[in-house]
């Protein structure tokens, strides 16, 4: 089995002590200490307080709802993102370049702006919402609105993970498959999909992780309704603002732990070489 070449040593590497300690001096207060603080504060009132804050109905709802939305977002965008990547990588058509830019835009747009624009489109006073609301279809301030926002915000992750692989995949393989009598679907299923597997995993995970932590767009479109549309990040913010720091921290600690777990899962699948681990 031919594997990728073993990682090369950095050329002319000298003693790592100085640069590494410099890096640590920057990273410890910048990244590691804030993360540690969440856990220290979460358990400051004792384990019992932590658990009782966590099993409260609204905290449980917020966590479950966030996870559910993250699963749905990851599932939908896995399919949608792969399809978009396939179309953009394999077909030539006028307006391809602007479209490629457009589908990557959500990365650049502030999430609050995404929330606002969704409201102005689907909201009860929005462009489409005004027409649809009398028909009983109003996704904003409902779980569907949260899903819409998360699909929008996380769309480029799948694309970013899958499209480079598709670009790399030479047409000859596909042509060979066709020559051997494979249909379009068979080619996709047995030639293209296996080559994309790693990208699908990492893209789905990134989507999931981002959705789990999404705040800016969600706060706009959800109406922040406790036990109905309040996601875990919104719960944390609402409880913190209300002065219930312990409740906020308990959920924050769980969310942080989940993100760590997802991150390690991501590392495992993407190998020690890391790769593109942007986001959270």
């Amino acid at each position, binding site marked *: 089995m*031919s594997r990728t070449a073993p990682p090369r040593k950095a050329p002319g590497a000298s003693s790592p002590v100085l640069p590494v300690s410099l890096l640590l001096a920057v990273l410890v207060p910048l990244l590691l200490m804030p993360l540690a603080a969440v856990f220290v504060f979460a358990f400051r009132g004792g384990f019992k307080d932590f658990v009782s804050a966590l099993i409260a109905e609204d905290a449980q709802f917020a966590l479950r709802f966030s996870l559910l939305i993250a699963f749905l977002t990851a599932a939908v965008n896995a399919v949608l993102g792969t399809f978009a990547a396939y179309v953009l990588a394999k077909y030539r058509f006028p307006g391809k370049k602007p479209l490629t830019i457009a589908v990557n835009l959500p990365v650049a747009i502030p999430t609050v702006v995404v929330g606002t624009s969704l409201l102005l489109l689907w909201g009860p006073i929005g462009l489409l919402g005004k027409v649809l609301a009398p028909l009983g279809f109003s996704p904003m*301030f409902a779980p569907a609105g949260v899903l819409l926002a998360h699909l929008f915000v996380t769309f480029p992750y799948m694309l970013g993970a899958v499209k480079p692989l598709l670009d*790399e995949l030479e047409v000859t393989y596909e042509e060979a498959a066709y020559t051997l009598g494979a249909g379009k679907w068979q080619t996709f299923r047995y030639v293209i999909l296996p080559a994309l597997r790693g990208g699908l995993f990492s893209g789905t995970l990134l989507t999931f992780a981002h959705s789990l932590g999404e705040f800016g767009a969600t706060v706009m479109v959800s109406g922040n309704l406790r*036990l109905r549309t309040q996601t875990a990040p919104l719960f944390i913010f609402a409880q913190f603002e209300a002065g219930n720091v312990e409740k906020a921290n308990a959920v924050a600690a769980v969310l942080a732990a989940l993100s760590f777990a997802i991150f390690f899962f991501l590392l495992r699948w*993407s190998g020690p070489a890391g790769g593109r681990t942007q986001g959270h």
Partner: protein
Amino acid sequence: MQECSQWGGSFQENAPDGTPGRYPYPPMGRLGSSSAQRSGWPRSLSALVIWGAWGALLLYAVWPWLPGRGRQTRPRTIIVYGFSILGDALDRAVLPAFARHWRTETGERVEFVTSFAGSGTVTNQLIMGVPAHLALLSLELDAQRLATAGVIPAGSWKTLPLGGVVNRTPFILLVRPGNPKGIHDFADLGRPGVTVVHPDPLTSGGANWALLAEYGAAARHAAPGHEREAGTASLRGVWSHVVAQAASARAARTQFENGFGDVLVTYEQDAVHGNEKDGKKKKSAPKWEIVYPPSTVLSEHTLVIIDKNATPEERPIVHALAAFLWSDEAQTLFVANGFRSVRDELNGANPAFGTIADPFLVADFGGWTKVKKDIVDTIWKGEILPGLGK
């Protein structure tokens, strides 16, 4: 098909390695599939554990929504929005009391979906179309904004008991323990070296009440004919020392608790209730003291019913809840949670309430429409903020 799958496999193994740098993204996918190359799907134990964990996570997430998990009768749902300091009083006391009351009366279960934010934020959300049935706003002005936007019929809240006012609370000053800066009145906030935390009048209803308190306390004791002058001077004194503005009264208190400023201008309810909550839990000395100014405003909180968001079947229960807010039971619960009842005889029940020599109401200054125009817009926004370079 056979050929195809072999093609897939051999593509994997012979995948070209020598093209780094050609693409903006590292070829994560190829690396990623390493452990799953031969078997198709991962079979090793650790993979099993990881997939099991994902499965468990998914199961946990969907658990309450699984079919067959007892939801005997769907409870009735009422959606209530409120301004920031109402959270505890409604969620933990008044709404559960109504649910009990309704259940014994009709046998139906009621559940509440609530959301709390600054009064201005709540108003904006209502205008954007959140599906609230009832909203408790911290000032009547927000109700008027809702009427202008067509969310509720104009003046509809005035047909409710007491013109829609559910409860009150005076505006007070919170200072650090021991009152090191010797603050006793709004006028003291203008002294050099005093720093003030204030909610933002643009999003917080409470902040508008605070503006009226700061202006009114001085204006009521000025020589006849000099009310405007005295009130403006008092406002200018306070606002030249504001160091932090939070979006809501609650958020302002959180800032104050975190060590910002010498003084916080806020609702008595928030201070009384906050002290009770902390005292019960930690038995530590309170982080602040309440100072009652000799003269201050009693804020009045207005209920609006958004009938257009309720179906005809929902309306009776929504109106029943609205009426319940003025009942003895609800008013007593409000007092227990630090609000002053609209019925003075009930207020003796909370020993934490202090005395105010000269309380006044917004009606004493001609109602909110006039106060908004003359004091908030003309004096505060028009004269004081530009003068301070804000």
